[in-house]
């Protein structure tokens, strides 16, 4: 595995905040979300494409996102997702948690002694 390729566990753990963050930028659909993640990670973040949909459906069930059907440019039926109010709150919570974790790692990296 390439050293910059995140492990399977990290990919799974980061999926929800990534999806919610992408949807915060505007409504989107499964394929576009995956392309966005791939593009932002420079190709290092590889999801098995199909895994995204059960996660999106869970988010929909928990009312973090709302789904609606539309038509693609080529006339194909397409399911779009938009971020809901509960999703915005969840995203904020997850961001705080990730930032906290990042801060801890940075401190340890800088050699700050443990205060135990």
């Amino acid at each position, binding site marked *: 595995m390439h050293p910059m390729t995140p492990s399977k566990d990290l990919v799974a753990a980061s999926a929800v905040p990534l999806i919610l963050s992408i949807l915060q930028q505007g409504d989107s659909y499964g*394929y576009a979300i995956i392309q966005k993640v791939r593009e932002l990670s420079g190709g290092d973040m590889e999801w*098995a*494409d*199909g*895994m995204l949909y*059960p996660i999106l*459906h869970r988010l929909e069930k928990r009312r973090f996102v709302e789904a609606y059907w539309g038509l*693609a440019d080529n006339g194909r039926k397409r399911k779009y997702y938009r971020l809901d109010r509960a999703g915005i709150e969840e995203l904020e919570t997850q961001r705080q948690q990730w930032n906290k974790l990042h801060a801890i790692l940075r401190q340890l990296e800088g050699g700050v002694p443990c205060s135990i």
Partner: protein
Amino acid sequence: MFDLDREVATWSAAVHAGRCQAAAGEGVTELSDHLYCEIERGRAAGLSDEEAFRAAVVRMGTSGELTAEIAKNRSPLGVVCRIAAKLDGPMPASAEDRRLLTAHAVVWATLLIASSMVLTTTTVAKTGLLLILLIYIPLWQVSDQLLRRALRKRPAGRA
């Protein structure tokens, strides 16, 4: 000759085979759209329809992985739908699924015979719906989970 539309429809339907009709229909449409997007990308890179389809399917992950992931979202009603879909269709291909189906048949035949011995006709007439909602459906879910665990613990090769 390779029929792209038929292959996409078959693959998407197989992933959602165990779901209730409405959920499966939407899921199939959504997965099909994704497959077509990826196939269009493959075609633009010079692949044939068949090559682009095969590559898109590989990117999606195995249907077993996908079905397992979809199963995590299943409600109690979804579990009943899945079993009903299985009973309605041909015998499952994998030995594990066949063992699970047989174990369910034995457990539920026993339970129904026991129920018929304990319950009187009047009780069933009065509490039939409640029995199904409060006892049989939860029991179905619990027994499904227990049987799966029990079958997973069995060493491979022992049917």
